[in-house]
C-alpha cells in the first residue's frame, strides 16, 4: 500500500486517536493507525497523545523511537524491506541486499531521490524455507534473485 504524504489536520489526528482511546494499552494501536493513515507519525500527534494518555511528550516520543516500525517523516511511495536474517543469508540474501543497495546507490533506511522507494532491513519474514525474501509494501516475495529484484525495483519506479 503506497504511503500518503498529505499534511494531516488536527481534526484528522483527533478522530484517529478517539477510535482507540478506550482500549487497554491504546498507544501502539494509535501509532499504527496514525502511520497507516499518514505514512508516518505526525509531530502534532505526539502532544495530543501525551495529553490524552496522561503521559509526557518525551515519554510518547520515547515509545515512538523505540520501535523500528514507526517513522517520524514520510517514507518513499513504496517501501521494500529486504530480509537480512540468517536463513536468508544462507541462500545468498546478504549478497542480494548489497547488490540492491549498490544498484540504487542507497544505504539502509534511505529513499531514492525521486521519492519512489525506501529500502529497509527486516529480520525475518517467516519465509525461511524459501529465501531470499523481501516485502514490498504489504506483499511478501520469496526465492528472490537479482532478476526478480530488478523487476520489483522497476515496478516501484526506483
Amino acid at each position, binding site marked *: 500500500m503506497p504511503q500518503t504524504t498529505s499534511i494531516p489536520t488536527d481534526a484528522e489526528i483527533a478522530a484517529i486517536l478517539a477510535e482507540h482511546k478506550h482500549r*487497554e*494499552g*491504546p*498507544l*501502539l*494501536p494509535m*501509532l*499504527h493507525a496514525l502511520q497507516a493513515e499518514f505514512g508516518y507519525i505526525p509531530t502534532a500527534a505526539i502532544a495530543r497523545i501525551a495529553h490524552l*494518555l496522561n503521559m509526557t511528550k518525551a515519554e510518547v516520543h*520515547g*515509545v515512538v523511537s*523505540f*520501535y*523500528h*516500525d*514507526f517513522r517520524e517523516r514520510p517514507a518513499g511511495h513504496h517501501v521494500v*524491506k529486504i530480509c537480512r*536474517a*540468517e*536463513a*536468508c*543469508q*544462507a*541462500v545468498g540474501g546478504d549478497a542480494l541486499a548489497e547488490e540492491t543497495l549498490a544498484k540504487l546507490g542507497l544505504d539502509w533506511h534511505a529513499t531514492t531521490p525521486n521519492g519512489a522507494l525506501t529500502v529497509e532491513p*527486516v*529480520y*525475518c*519474514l*517467516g*519465509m*525461511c*524455507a*524459501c*529465501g531470499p*525474501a523481501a*516485502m514490498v509494501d*504489504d506483499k*511478501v*516475495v*520469496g*526465492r528472490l534473485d537479482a532478476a526478480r529484484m530488478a523487476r520489483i525495483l522497476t515496478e516501484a519506479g526506483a
Partner: protein
Amino acid sequence: MKLYIPMDSAAKALGADDVAEAVRREAEARDLDVTIIRTGTRGMIWLEPLVEIDRGNGREAFGPVTPKDVTALLDGTLDGHGPVENIPFFARQTRLTFARCGVIDPLDLADYEKHGGLAGLRRAIDLSSAEIVAEVTDSGLRGRGGAGFPTGIKWKTVMEAEAPQKYIVCNADEGDSGTFADRMIMEGDPFTLIEGMVIAGLGVGATKGYVYLRSEYPDAIAVMNEAIRIARAKGALGEDILGSNRSFDMEVRVGAGAYVCGEETSLLNSLEGKRGVVRAKPPLPALEGFLGRPTVVNNVISLATIPVIFERGAQLYADFGMGRSRGTVTLQIAGNVARGGLFETAFGITLGEVVNDLGGGTRSGQPVKAVQVGGPLGAYIPVANFDAPLGYEELDAKGGLLGHAGLTVFDDSVDMLKMARFAMEFCAVESCGKCTPCRIGSVRGVETIDRIARGDADAIPLLTDLCETMTDGSLCALGGFTPFPVMSALNHFPDDFATQKEAAE
C-alpha cells in the same frame, strides 16, 4: 473437481495467487465445474505453490506449479507426486498440532468442526478449572516459545492467583530467523489457536485474551482477525461460549518491529503501550503481568496444541516423545536446504536425520557445514554433532538450544566469522538497552570480531571474555544467549577465524 491451493503467505510469496487466478480463468474458458478451495500450506515449502486436485478419489499433489503449468494440470497431463499423504516428507510426520493445516479452509468453522475442531473445548467446558490445568500438566506440554517451561505449572500459578481480571496473552512475535510455525498455523488453522486460548481462559479464570502478532506478518494478522470475527459471530467466542454460560473474548495486537518484544515481559510492556524494555523477574507475569494482573503468556504453538490434547486426551499426547520432552515438536527446516518446510514429529529424532534424510542436504548441492538450531540466539552445530537428538535436555547436553525448533542449514560457503559478527550486530540493533553488557558489549563484540578478521589474534581471548560478561551480566536471553552463536562458531570452526588471520598477515 475440487482444487486446493494454499493461501499461506509462503505459498503466495512463491506465486500461489497467480496460479489460483490461472486455474479460475482456464476453468471458465473450458466451462469446467471446478471448486477452488484456498487452504493453509501442508508445510512442504519446496513444493509450493503446491496444488491438490480431488477428482473424486482423494487429493493428488502437484508442485511447484506455475501459471504456465495450469493447462497441463487441468488436462491431467502434468507430472505430480501422487496422493499428498504418500509423499515421504508428509507420510513420516505425526501431525497433532498441525493436523488440519493445509487440509481445511482456514476460515470455515464448519470444516474445522468436521475435522475435530471444538471437540476439545466442548470437553473442557464440562471440566473444572483444576481439571483443565491437570490435563495440561499430564500431557507434559512444555512451552514451545523457547524456554520449554511446563505449561501446566504456569497455568496453575495463574489459576491460583486472585484478581478481578486475568489475561491470556499469546506470544505471536515469532522473531527468530528459521522459524515460521506460528505464522503457518495462524494462517492455516487459526481456529485452533482461538480454541486453545478459550480453554486457557476457562482453565485459569481469564476472560480476555490478546494475540501479540508481529507486524511483519500482514497475512497472519488478516486471517486471525477474520477468524476471531467468525468465531464470535458463531458463538465460539465472546459471551456464553457454545451455550456454556462462560465468556472469553480476544483481539489481535500488532507489534512494531522490535525483536526483543518476543521476550514475555518486554511484550507485556509493549502491549501496555510502553517501550519494549525487559522487566526484571520477579514478579512473574503469571502473578503481575498485563496491567499488573495475573497473565498467562504462551507461545502460539503451545496454545494451538491445547485443543488436540483435550480432544484426544493428555495421555495420547504424552505417549509421544522422549525423556522430559513429551509430545510432538514442530520442526522448521530452513535456510540452504533442498526440502525445507515444517515437519511435526515426536521429540527424539536426530539432527542428522532431519537435515540429511528429510531435508535432503543443501539446496545448493554443496556439503552442509553447520546448522543453527533455535534461532539467532542458538548455537551453530557442526556436522560432527549430527547425532544429537532433538529434545530440550538432549540438545542442552550438546551445548545447543532447541528454542522455537527452527533449524537453519548452511553449506560450506558460509563464513562462520561473518555469522558470529552478525549475531553481535543483531544483538546491538535489537537490544532493549537495559543492561550494559548487552547494549555496549554487543557493539564491542562487532569491533572485536572485526579485529580478528583483520588478523589480530589477541582479540580472540577478548571475544571470549566479552561473551562471558554478556552471559553473566544480561537480564534476558538476548544479551545472555548471543554468546551461543558466537562461541559455537569460534569453537567449532576455528579455521574461519584463523584463515582470515593468515590471509591478512
